[in-house]
């Protein structure tokens, strides 16, 4: 679905590469969480997947990124935006219309879809994302979580196969953050949409993502199923990525000789493991 090969990118005028030799294959229907310290290259990687690099931001570009078999270098941003929809970090900067309905319509009208098709997609997407009740609301009156949903709906209306999101819960409270990730998970599971989300909240990623990509200083340090990556918790902490506390607990119980190294990534798993330990 997304194939990144030996990707190196140096922003114009920069001395250091923002990405160095990154290679990864993201399968169709994957849900990848991208995590890493500030300046690790997470947003740059996303920008290479949606074509903003090299089409908008210039620089030295080596390697390749293929989306559904097509090299992003050879596709226009318009073509790419129909396959891979992006929700940017600054959602307020992304929403430019007065009402929820207008925001969703904007992309559809720009792509010149027939009127009946536009109406049908609008209904469908508002329902899908659970914001039908907000249809005529002014965007300025929405909460952060609601705005994030509108941004996702506007992108989904174009029926992309891939959703790319840059810190979608950055300014949301815990309940709204979970709502956004639950929605992404549902779209991923029920509609088969491939999701790539840059996110700092490791607990959300360990609960909702199927794979983790850990970046540091422009390199992809780890990439694989969440549980496999979290096994490297000590190395992750050195990079500057924390792990869920239940992972630290698993490590502590192993260190004390109470378990044989079972890794728990959720509270449910940890509860079962602790009960086993208590029963001896």
């Amino acid at each position, binding site marked *: 679905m997304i194939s990144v090969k030996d990707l190196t990118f140096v922003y114009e005028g920069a001395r250091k590469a923002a990405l160095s030799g990154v290679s990864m294959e993201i399968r169709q229907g994957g849900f990848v969480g991208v995590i890493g310290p500030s300046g690790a290259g997470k947003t740059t990687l996303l920008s290479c997947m949606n074509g903003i690099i090299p089409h908008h931001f210039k620089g030295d570009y080596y390697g390749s990124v293929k989306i559904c078999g097509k090299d992003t270098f050879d596709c226009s941003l318009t073509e790419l935006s129909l396959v891979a929809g992006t929700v940017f970090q600054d959602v307020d900067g992304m929403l430019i219309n007065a009402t929820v309905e207008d925001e969703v319509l904007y992309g559809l009208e720009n792509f010149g879809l027939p009127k009946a098709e536009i109406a049908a997609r609008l209904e469908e997407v508002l329902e899908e994302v659970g914001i039908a009740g907000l249809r005529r609301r002014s965007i300025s009156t929405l909460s952060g979580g609601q705005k994030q949903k509108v941004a996702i709906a506007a992108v989904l209306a174009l029926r992309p196969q891939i959703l790319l999101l840059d810190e979608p819960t950055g*300014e949301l409270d815990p309940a*709204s953050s979970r709502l956004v990730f639950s929605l992404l998970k549902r779209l991923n599971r029920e509609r088969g949409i491939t999701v790539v989300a840059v996110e700092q909240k490791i607990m959300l990623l360990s609960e909702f993502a199927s794979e983790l990509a850990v970046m540091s200083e422009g390199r992809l340090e780890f990439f694989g199923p969440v549980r496999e990556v979290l096994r490297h918790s000590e190395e992750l902490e050195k990079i500057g990525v924390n792990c869920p506390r*239940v992972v630290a*607990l698993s490590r502590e119980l192993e260190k004390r000789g*109470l378990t044989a190294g079972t890794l728990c990534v959720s*509270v449910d798993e940890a509860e079962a493991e*602790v009960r086993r330990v208590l029963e001896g």
Partner: protein
Amino acid sequence: MIRLERVCYRYEGSGAAVEDLSFEINRGEFAALLGENGAGKSTVAKLIDGLVKPASGTVTVAGLDTRKTKTSELAKRVGFLFQNPDRQICKNTVREELAFGLELRGLDRAAIDERVERTLRDFGFDGERGPFTLSRGERQRLALASIIAAEPEIMILDEPTTGLDYRECMRVMEAVKGLNENGATVLMICHDMEVVLDFARRALVLSKGRLIADGAARRIFRSACAMEKASLSPPQITQLSLRLGAGFEEADTVGELAEAIVKRRRAV
């Protein structure tokens, strides 16, 4: 140090942001203000540093009634870290940024230079760097450093760790902890319950502009009613120890839970 008595405040054209709110925070406390987006947390922060004045009730900060005191006067006592550091950074170099707040306070040149140098050293900043060439996390630390340089008695932090990676978050929080250990009173708005557990001793929970719980942070996390009402989940280890029940009431950290498990096994 901070006292709110029956405070009400509403923004023009909308419902009450804060309703009949009363609480007191004593000198040297490290308290966290919790609640959903829109619960009124930022309004409380603005009421304390005088950016908004109560419609009714009284806000007293360091003995000063905020309605009778100029915001600039309050700013000498209260340091305020905005959620977005770019709202407060306004100078061309890190050194100028650090000096700016001190100049406004009317300190003499020698004192300003001494405090700026000390802060540069403590935070490891390059004084000649342009603030906007720093990463978001570094800018947050710079905003915090400029407040700390002014040695405020009270520090209000509005989501100080938003947008920061883990390492940056810890560096910012360690700096706040240091300030608190030196006697400053800290009130922090925070959505990250693990950070609250690690740093705050007291928690106040707001819901729809009202105070619904107030007490030791660890005790609040174990109050299912308050947490649910504010749509909050306790930190992971607290969730786990709540499920494990008797014998795990004091276990909120990894170390404490591991100890409790060992103890229980010995007892069996």
